[in-house]
């Protein structure tokens, strides 16, 4: 042992709370995180999970009961669930029906189904109607790119109007995985958010949430969406140390934040991403309890009441 190392370690230990040994015994037991204490803070609404098989490999939690158990272990009390089948299937009516049934059968009151419509397929309006009227879904989720249309599609404006008229949430997924590791058969375009801005300006009643969206390098599309529309966001794609806090907190000098915290929701992108990623992101930035409660559940409740 080199005793000269002690200052750094002592510093770390002194700034941490005591009781590491007992806590480690808990945290170190794989598959058995501590059961949440009922008296602890409220649960989390995860606005971005997806059920069924990812087309390109098995995911650790792609069986719904396993995913639900995993979410519960992390005090996620509600999850808005799309379906991986919507990426490539043509029969979205069938995919949506299976999603609704899966949420009923295995959701244990935790999963809320978000079916999908594909603007590139004919009669997508009927899929939307069934999602709303037959399956009582609170919203639908689009996967531009995989679904072979982009946000300049001429029907997108009508879909936004129809979802607004029905009181549905419209979720738009900007990316599912890093294009650098795509299967070679895939050649997906980058989804450009800019056409969304005028469409949302024309339909201010629309409730639209952008999933796995970080904006372009210059930040101009994010800026336009924040300033000119009422779009909501989740933070699974907000990468970088402290990025979440940097985007939602006022900058030094009181400059307004890039994204109002009240329009940001928790999204894990599970089971493709570990649920732990989103959870740790909440704690990585020095956020106060009020802000955390907003991100964890209050903002989601404003967008979609229980």
């Amino acid at each position: 042992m080199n005793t000269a190392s002690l200052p750094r370690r002592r510093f770390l230990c002194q700034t941490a709370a005591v009781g590491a040994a007992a806590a480690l015994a808990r945290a170190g037991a794989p598959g058995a995180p501590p059961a949440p204490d009922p008296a602890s803070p409220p649960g989390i609404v995860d606005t971005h999970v997806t059920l069924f098989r990812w087309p390109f490999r098995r995911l650790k939690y792609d069986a719904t009961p396993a995913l639900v158990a995993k979410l519960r272990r992390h005090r996620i009390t509600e999850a808005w669930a799309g379906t991986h089948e919507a990426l490539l299937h043509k029969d979205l009516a069938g995919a949506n029906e299976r999603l609704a049934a899966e949420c009923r059968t295995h959701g244990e009151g935790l999963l809320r189904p978000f079916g999908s419509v594909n603007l590139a397929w004919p009669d997508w309006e009927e899929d939307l109607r069934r999602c709303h009227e037959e399956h009582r879904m609170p919203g639908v989720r689009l996967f531009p790119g995989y679904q072979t249309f982009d946000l300049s599609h001429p029907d997108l404006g009508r879909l936004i109007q129809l979802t607004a008229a029905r009181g549905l949430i419209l979720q738009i997924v900007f990316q599912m995985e890093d294009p650098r590791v795509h299967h070679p058969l895939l050649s997906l375009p980058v989804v450009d958010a800019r056409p969304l801005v005028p469409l949302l300006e024309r339909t201010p009643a629309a409730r639209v949430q952008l999933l796995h969206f970080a904006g372009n390098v210059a930040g101009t599309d994010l800026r336009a969406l924040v300033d000119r529309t009422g779009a909501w966001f989740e933070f699974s794609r907000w990468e970088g140390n402290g990025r979440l806090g940097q985007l939602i907190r006022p900058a030094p000098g009181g400059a307004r934040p890039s994204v109002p915290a009240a329009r940001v929701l928790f999204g894990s992108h599970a089971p493709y991403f570990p649920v732990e990623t989103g959870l740790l992101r909440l704690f990585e930035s020095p956020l106060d309890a009020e802000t955390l409660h907003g991100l964890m559940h209050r903002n989601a409740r404003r967008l979609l009441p229980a």
Partner: protein
Amino acid sequence: MDPLAFALNPADYGIPTRDELVAYRIWDTHFHGFNATSDPLGQFHANNLYVRRMGIERSITLEAGGTLRAPLEPAALDAEVRALLVKERAWLSGITPIDPGFPDESCAKMEAWIRRGPCIGIKYVGGNSRGIPCSHPNNDPIIRLAAELGATIYIHTWLKVGGTPRGPGRGNLPGESTPQDVVALARRFPDVRFICGHSGGDWELGVRVVRAQPNVLLEFAGSDPHSGAVDFAARELGADRLVWGGHGPSRSYATELAKVLESDLSHADRLKVFGGNFRRLAAPILRRQGIPFEL
């Protein structure tokens, strides 16, 4: 508000508290401490909040001397970085980037920054002007010198899909090594250990490439957190061959920590991955450089 305090208790959400993170003894072997074009020192100091907040015990910067864009050109802040590596040696170390397109100059830089300087290893960056990957014979004198110095050897690798016809690795930059390049080099130096960076870029393929080459360790920072990836790597390679990196500030510690915390690794294996394996690898040069550490 105490900037190191968590406003809510992470244990209530099934993730480690800060004292648990500290107890993992996390060594960030992939720290982009000074990889900013405008204000590298400012970025370094700003990032320290997150280093401390997430309980990182030691950060090992990859930009000690020169820059990743021009490894062999002296950078404006070289003297400041060198002084920081000495002053903050209790928690900060450095490895210096080299360029296999220029083996003589690379060796000279290693002499200056490792033998006569504070650094503990070398880094192969993601591409170079002469298009020389790490498998090229140019690398042999570099590796011989690294072995003599006991320096750690980190090799950025990717298998970017691209090209015509499209395939993994065909989208790489000129000189950007693949895990296949690392294996080819490691076969020539069976007594030297190498770190294959970014899990080969595509972990499902990268793990398969390095699996049979026992002197290649795998580091898996700098890519999206894929559920199950660390379990897969540990199953195929063994936890003793895995090394953790944070890749901050461009990547989030949340992203990189989650990869391990989500895995089914035992607590003992997590300790190895978070720092134990790298400390054993680097112990000789850490001692030689007089850097304080506990194994």
